[in-house]
């Protein structure tokens, strides 16, 4: 079995604060995690959960208080290992006096690529991220979404084995998000390992082989999106239309959106509910199962964390 592409062991980051920096705030607590080679791993959590801290630790932008990490079997202190890593920072910002072509050429030079190879790769990459028409414009005139595309291009320009993306969908419009999703899927198809952080759960559910949920600086769960949540059916949802008024009690319980109504009932009450709605003149449009989603799992953890935080505050008082 090949070594994990990324592994961390008790990775911890504390920041000193207060007078004389005597107090410490833990931003990441004992992160033990493995990302297997060739998988797409999503790092999900609310803002301030510790996702970016973990990624910055992996990229040696900040240094751990305790613990260690390895990428492609090498310790993260090994700078040469960065030849095989691509990294997109959160809300990336680049030298705004350069054009997209120049900034990509600048970064490519650190990978010892020959001039002709650099030129060829840059052409392909600009096309891939949809910036070929803006290649000669200085980055100071770029929108946030365009900068995000430049960031993605520089992260994968040198064909890295491991790609680490910090909030890659941030600042992108729906088309841009779709394109980034396609790029991530293409990377997976090419056998690359992709780890990305996000707080957009639908992206994680759609793209990831596995996700790690981090809340309050602690990793709360790791697994395939489907296995993290309880997949049992929580109920049934009936979507129906109603022409004219009705006094049926079930109609009163439904949520109305325009001409349509949504009603959630227990599984065993489904047929009785449909009969009752039809009796009230409703036209049934669809019936679907309601399952727990990653979002609910995530929200439960966030709520539990907040409750714990509140409990600590109360006990401190």
């Amino acid at each position, binding site marked *: 079995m090949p070594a994990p592409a990324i592994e961390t062991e008790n990775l911890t980051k504390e920041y000193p604060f207060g007078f004389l920096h005597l107090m410490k705030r833990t931003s990441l607590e004992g992160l033990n995690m493995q990302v297997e080679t060739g998988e797409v791993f999503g790092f999900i959590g609310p803002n301030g959960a510790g996702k970016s801290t973990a990624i910055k630790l992996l990229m040696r*932008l*900040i240094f751990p208080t305790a613990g260690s990490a390895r990428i492609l079997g090498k310790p993260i202190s090994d700078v*040469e290992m960065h030849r095989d890593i691509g*990294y997109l*920072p959160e809300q990336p910002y680049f030298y705004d006096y350069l054009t997209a072509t120049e900034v990509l050429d600048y970064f490519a030079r650190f990978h010892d690529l020959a001039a002709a190879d650099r030129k060829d790769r840059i052409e392909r990459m600009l096309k891939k991220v949809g910036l070929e028409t803006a290649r000669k414009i200085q980055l100071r005139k770029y929108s946030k979404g365009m900068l995000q595309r430049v960031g993605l291009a*520089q992260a994968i320009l040198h064909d890295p084995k491991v790609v680490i993306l910090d909030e890659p969908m941030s600042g992108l419009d729906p088309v841009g998000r779709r394109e980034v999703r396609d790029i991530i899927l293409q990377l997976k198809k090419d056998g690359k390992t992709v780890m990305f952080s996000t707080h957009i759960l639908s992206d994680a559910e759609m793209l990831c082989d596995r996700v790690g949920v981090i809340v309050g600086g602690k990793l709360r769960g790791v697994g395939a999106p489907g296995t993290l949540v309880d997949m049992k059916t929580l109920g049934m949802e009936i979507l129906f239309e109603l022409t004219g008024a009705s006094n049926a009690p079930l109609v009163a319980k439904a949520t109305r959106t325009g001409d349509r109504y949504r009603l959630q009932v227990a599984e065993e009450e489904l047929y009785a509910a449909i009969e009752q709605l039809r009796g009230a003149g409703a036209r049934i449009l669809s019936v679907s199962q309601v399952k727990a989603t990653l979002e609910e799992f995530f929200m439960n953890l966030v709520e539990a964390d907040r409750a714990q935080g509140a409990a600590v505050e109360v006990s401190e008082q």
Partner: protein
Amino acid sequence: MRRAGVVALNTFREAVRDRVLYNLVFFALLMIAASVAVGQISIGIEQTVIVSLGLSAISVIGLLISVFLGVALVSKEMDKRTLYALLAKPVRRWEFLLGKFGGLVLTLTVNTAAMALGLLLVMLYVKHGLGGSDTVVLVGVYFILLKLALVVALALLFSCFTTPLLAILFTVGLYIVGLYVQELRNLPVQVMSPAMSAFTKWLSYLLPNFENFNVMAMAAHGRAVPGALVLQNTLYTLVYCTIVLTAAAAVFSRRNLK
């Protein structure tokens, strides 16, 4: 080292695109005004006035660029987070620092060389010719460049562990103190305790000595600068910059980015 070169060239490109070299226009205007004025007001002291004014302007303009851009070399990259993507490449932090230092020194070299050329042209216009003794002006310009390299190294060091404003204050403060190192070394022993005397002497050797770079009086009067001083100042700058940059790399290599 090649990676440091890539960073250096980009730093130079940044300075050019941010219109840092526009200061040359100011210098050119100053020199034109001086050449006109010197013909009106001075008889026989054209060399002294033009060389003093020219070297002073080269020094002041260079110092302003060294201090302000020197401090911004790293702090701007950290503030704007342009450093993040770069440090994720196979580049060591000391290579980045060395590249930034080299890029600004390259900018200052081009800038100073252009100003020196302007000064020589004005001297040619005022004196109707240049003689062998005028090479001392070039030595003066070279010493200014050495001094600026040292200032950049100090600004870079301070910006690695403090805020830009404090880094500017520290750099300027150290520069001013460095102009009076000889005085510190020659303080009369009678007014101090032996311990204090030893301390000031020790301090005077530790502080950067900017006094040795000032050969303006010699240049203004066309007196030759001893070759030993050229060699001494060159070695001094090399050694001092190496020490300061090593310290900066040691600090920066442990620094957590925001």
